[in-house]
């Protein structure tokens, strides 16, 4: 993985000192809250329901054991002993003091971490495939391109006050494991017929109030023009994105209102201009970065999993992913214990994950946007030991991509934007389906819960999606069906009138019942929904 050189280190340290100075000026009264808010947001510091919340960046979801241990230490030293892994591969701490924030950033900088641009109207964390560098189906590791974009976007002087936040995702496989089409810019690294590496570029995707799937705007940008092209996309957005209405300020609205063809035309014009200006980094820079993402020293070994222990076998079947090396798999560390808080990990659990990474995964971990963790390179021979350790630590739930593997935003328990709580819903749903034994029967079922229309729980992309709304001061929930964040991307449709908490849990049971009754061989919930449509579900729900 990428290691900072002295330049990178100096940049994060300069940022820490800049923020320390900004925080001092706020505490001294030289900055009003209105003036300070964008500055603290650009260092990941929100003011939430109970305290300040700090969102630490985990660039493209990759970190090593030392970094994970540092995250555990921060949880213990400055917070309340736990952290929350997010749907953008970052980690959040909920009980932070402004007085401590600069010191926390300083601690992070010692392990090559930061909270740079994890909030604010600027370019955010570049997300990627959590199986990058391990998956059998990728063209190339997408993360060097994500790192190149990360450096380009950090403290970018022109794009620090965009109309709104800006999110990139970079993948390099046909399979989309990063919800790429639902980002402001989505990039798929491909090879053209001549074998050259380049980028398919999609622009104008997003969830939130008005979910949209990003259209393709360029089918091939050569890698040595990628930064120039990104700069062109951003400049058009910075100049012409709406600034009159916060809820219409994302690039998806601009692309929608101009039409993809016109947005593309403006980008191509700016791109031609910027090519003549010359903004691309030297070619050698990508090579320098890519050299740090080489394969670890894989060791040969058994290629089959011993499935004699049924519990281990279930976990191995559900929570491991095929690796490009046949003696290895990628293993998922579940943060979805039945009845637990999705994505939360205690400091001790983080330390256990770090230890397992050192022992069994070449010192590397990943964060999934589905709020689990990954050990990307585990020898099949080591799987039983890994599983035993995870199971003992409460991180061995064998439920990846099942109805128990719920994505839920923090919701009204933590977030000042929320209308309803999402975590208790996730807890009750996973408990209900685990108790009735339905989880296995249902197979792949991606259920996502958002506590408000900002859709941080990605409910638009859920096979089953739940949105919390405020109904005259009480919590109410809308149910939607048929969304997908994968390469078969689609946006979920609302079933009809909303439900209270008990009602929506019953509704989830109802729709899964409809699926089980109607499905044909091999169909997932999503497939059955797509085949039979909304009507049978509506009928069952509302009679």
């Amino acid at each position: 993985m990428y290691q900072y050189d002295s330049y990178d280190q100096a940049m994060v340290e300069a940022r820490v000192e800049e923020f320390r100075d900004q925080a001092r000026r706020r505490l001294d009264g030289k900055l009003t809250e209105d003036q300070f808010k964008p500055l603290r947001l650009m260092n990941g510091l929100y003011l939430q329901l109970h305290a300040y919340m700090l969102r630490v960046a985990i660039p493209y979801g990759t970190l090593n054991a030392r970094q994970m241990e540092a995250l555990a230490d921060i949880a213990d030293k400055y917070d309340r002993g736990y952290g929350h892994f997010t749907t953008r591969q970052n980690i959040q701490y909920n009980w932070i003091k402004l007085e401590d924030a600069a010191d926390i950033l300083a601690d992070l900088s010692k392990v090559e971490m930061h909270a740079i641009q994890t909030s604010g109207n600027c370019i955010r964390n570049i997300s990627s495939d959590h199986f990058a560098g391990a998956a059998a189906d990728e063209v190339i590791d997408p993360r060097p391109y994500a790192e190149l974009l990360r450096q380009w976007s950090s403290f970018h002087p022109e794009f620090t006050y965009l109309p709104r936040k800006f999110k990139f995702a970079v993948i390099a496989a046909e399979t989309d494991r990063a919800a790429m089409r639902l980002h402001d810019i989505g990039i798929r690294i491909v090879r053209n017929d001549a074998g050259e590496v380049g980028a398919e570029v999609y622009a104008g995707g997003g969830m939130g109030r008005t979910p949209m799937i990003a259209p393709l705007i360029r089918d091939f940008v050569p890698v040595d023009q990628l930064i120039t092209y990104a700069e062109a996309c951003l400049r058009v957005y910075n100049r012409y994105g709406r600034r009159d209405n916060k809820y219409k300020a994302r690039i998806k609205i601009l692309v929608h209102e101009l039409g993809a063809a016109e947005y593309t035309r403006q980008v191509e014009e700016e791109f031609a201009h910027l090519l003549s200006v010359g903004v691309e980094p030297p070619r050698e820079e990508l090579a320098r970065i890519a050299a740090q993402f080489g394969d670890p020293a894989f060791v040969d070994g058994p290629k089959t999993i011993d499935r004699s222990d049924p519990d281990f076998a279930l976990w191995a079947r559900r929570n491991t992913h095929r690796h490009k090396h046949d003696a290895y798999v990628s293993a998922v560390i579940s943060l979805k214990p039945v009845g637990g808080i999705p994505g939360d990990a205690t400091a001790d659990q983080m330390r256990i994950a770090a230890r397992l990474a050192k022992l069994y995964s070449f010192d590397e971990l990943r964060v999934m946007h589905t709020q689990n963790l990954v050990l990307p390179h585990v020898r099949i021979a080591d799987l039983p030991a890994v599983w035993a350790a995870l199971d003992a630590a409460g991180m061995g739930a064998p439920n990846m991509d099942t109805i128990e593997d719920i994505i839920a935003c923090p919701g009204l328990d933590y977030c000042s934007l929320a209308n309803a709580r999402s975590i208790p819903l996730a807890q009750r749903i996973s408990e209900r389906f685990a108790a009735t034994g339905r989880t296995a029967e249902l197979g792949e079922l991606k259920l996502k819960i958002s506590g408000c229309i900002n859709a941080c729980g990605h409910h638009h992309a859920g096979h089953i999606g739940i949105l919390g709304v405020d109904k005259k001061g009480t919590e109410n929930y809308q149910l939607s069906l048929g969304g997908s964040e994968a390469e078969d991307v689609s946006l979920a449709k609302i079933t009809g009138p909303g439900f209270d908490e008990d009602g929506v849990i019953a509704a989830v049971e109802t729709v899964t019942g409809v699926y089980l009754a109607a499905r044909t061989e091999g169909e997932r919930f999503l497939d059955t929904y797509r085949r039979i449509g909304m009507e049978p579900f509506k009928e069952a729900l509302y009679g």
Partner: protein
Amino acid sequence: MADNLGTSPDEVQFRFRDDEPVDHGTVTVDACCDQTNAAAVRIEPGDDARVLLPFLGRLALIEVNFPGFGDGRGYSSARILREAGYTGELRAVGDVLIDQLSHMRRCGFDSFAPDKRLDEDDAARAFATWENVYQRAADTRMFGRATIADKRHEG
């Protein structure tokens, strides 16, 4: 000639030029296109800076207004003008605060007339925040400043 709607030299708190500050009346972008003798113009966030490209030769001062510091369109306007070869004074005016100074400088601003005068020490620190830079901008182009990637691969 339109009324002077620009800032005067004594409102300029920071200036990184050796020449004398322009003290002409500043006109709007629309007026600039009509008047063949306008030498100073003010760009608003919604103006297209490229409209000024035919007139860059006679412009000695371009002000870019930031009515609210959160509206970042002026940064693009600045870079666009420098990319087009404008070498005159490029002045950031309006809601210009300490924490925007270094980015504004990188985008090509060489003069700053904030609505409220800024603390000199805070400003000096702000301009000096970044010893190195990741990405190309007006400063790398105009002053040959090397980016971090340039330095990594020089020679």
